[in-house]
């Protein structure tokens, strides 16, 4: 570099070049490192959305917790939902390293400024939906998250490693519910097929817009926040899931789905992005309910948090007095 910085302070431009060099060298960015503001904001948006999705994602499954059809299933589902809460907690903490508080993130969620995965705006109508969520929704999430394990931001990457392990456990459990039902009574089989019908396309939508319509992706790829494109990940998910559906003897609701020997991959139909946008916009069956559940829990719990704080303060004073 030919700019002599007499104060030994780097210009933003220099810092950004150094930052990108580090990223390119596959070195991790850590909280105390300098990072471009847009990198920070992109991560905050993505990570908090991820955290919110874990928390909101407890609701559709929680809808069946009190109605789980066996004690074992109830225990397993409870453990799974607890894991999701743990992931949320972990991701909120990771996001806090970027300089935003959990309260601020909640506020963004509750005001509608921050999003959560739109898939949770669909209702769970039968027990098979719990299986389908585990199998497909967690399956799609893992596909995304495996890529994120190599994300350039250290805390996020580490969170993903930890979370991926548990998620793949969840996915197997979900698949096992589907298998039990697919091999069960006619009614159960019908529920399983119906759940697949309803959750298949929303799962594909989880990977985001097609690459041609994803303007932000290039920058995220350059920063190595994203390591694979939306369409690449979606393809991966489809290729992994089709044989699983076949094994269950269930039909994926896509007439255009076919193995492409040349590409060594499945071709599949066009995603209905109008439907996707419609749900994101607020016209999913559960948009209002999911948000209301979160807001009610938070607002309704204020007196509890106030009490905990007041008690902690009293305890501190007592410790001081005693000293």
């Amino acid at each position, binding site marked *: 570099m030919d700019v002599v910085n007499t104060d030994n302070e780097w210009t933003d431009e220099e810092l950004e070049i150094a930052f990108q060099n580090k990223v390119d060298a596959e070195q991790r960015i850590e909280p105390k490192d300098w990072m471009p503001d847009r990198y920070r904001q992109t991560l905050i948006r993505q990570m908090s959305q991820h955290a919110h999705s874990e928390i909101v994602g407890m609701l559709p499954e929680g809808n069946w917790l*009190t109605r789980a059809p066996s004690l074992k299933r109830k225990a397993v589902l*409870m*453990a799974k939902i607890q894991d999701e809460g743990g992931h949320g907690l972990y991701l909120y903490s990771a996001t806090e390293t970027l300089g935003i508080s959990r309260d601020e993130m909640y506020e963004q969620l509750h005001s509608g400024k921050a999003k959560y995965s739109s898939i949770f705006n669909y209702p769970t109508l039968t027990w098979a939906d719990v299986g389908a969520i585990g199998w497909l929704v967690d399956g799609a999430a893992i596909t995304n998250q495996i890529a994120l394990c190599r994300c350039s931001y250290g805390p996020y990457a580490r969170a993903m490693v930890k979370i991926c392990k548990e998620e793949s456990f969840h996915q197997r459990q979900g698949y096992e519910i589907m298998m039990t039902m697919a091999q069960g009574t006619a009614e159960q089989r019908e529920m399983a097929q119906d759940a697949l019908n309803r959750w298949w396309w929303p799962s594909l939508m989880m990977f985001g817009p097609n690459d041609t319509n994803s303007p932000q992706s290039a920058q995220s790829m350059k920063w190595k926040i994203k390591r694979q494109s939306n369409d690449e990940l979606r393809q991966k998910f489809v290729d992994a899931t089709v044989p699983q559906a076949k094994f269950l003897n269930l039909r994926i609701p896509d007439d255009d789905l076919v193995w492409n020997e040349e590409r060594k991959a499945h071709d599949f139909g066009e995603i209905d992005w109008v439907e996707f946008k419609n749900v994101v916009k607020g016209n999913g069956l559960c948009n209002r309910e999911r948000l209301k559940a979160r807001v009610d829990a938070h607002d309704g719990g204020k007196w509890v948090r106030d009490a905990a704080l007041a008690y902690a303060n009293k305890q501190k004073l007592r410790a001081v007095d005693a000293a």
Partner: protein
Amino acid sequence: MTDNNALFEYLLRLGDNSLILGQRLAEWCGHAPILEEELALTNIGLDLVGQSRLLLTYAAEVEGAGRDEDMLAFHRDTQAWRNLLLLEQPNGDFAKTIARQFFFDNFQYLQFEGLCQSKDDRLAAIAAKSLKEITYHLRHSTNWVLRLGDGTTESHEKMQIAIDELWGFLPEMFDMDEIDTQLLAEGVGVDLAALKPRWDEVVNAVLLEATLERPEDTWSVRGSREGKHSEHLGYLLAEMQFLQRAYPDAKW
């Protein structure tokens, strides 16, 4: 009543307590006042469902009528349930949930501590495993009674109301009927009445520290051991049992 019948009935009481309270805690899912508390309540609920599985499985084996834990959980109507009335009471607000938990944790701790000495090895083993969990539950609910009781004016009031509302459900915990007496004599069961002084001691100490008043003993209700429940249990069961009832031929 043969010994097997008595033991079956005894295990049912224990298992039903854990299951019904676990089910109530499951209702909190997604609605807890703090994320950390969401995890804690789910964790406790999970422990309780786990206990119920061990106890009801054992009960079903003792009964020897070909039932299993799920037959017992999903195919008994209100009057066949043996859980304490306290545990089927609705969650109410967080203070009420904590009060219910605190009273029961203290009771269950002493009960299972006693059961660790049971001459029935399997029951003793279940009790020993559960006691570790209960120790955590008890610490958790005790902490919250302190925080809410000695927190803000609002939380103090809510906590006191919760305690008052549940107080009359508590004497039932310490009742000894024929089955309790028989199993105590056989060295299998616990003297519940004898737990009362220790329970009182701990509860009084916590209430005092939490600046809460111990209510007067002005009312009490009982009946769960004869299947006489409050009207809340029917709704809980209708929800919990729906799938098994609607599709009796299915395996899940």
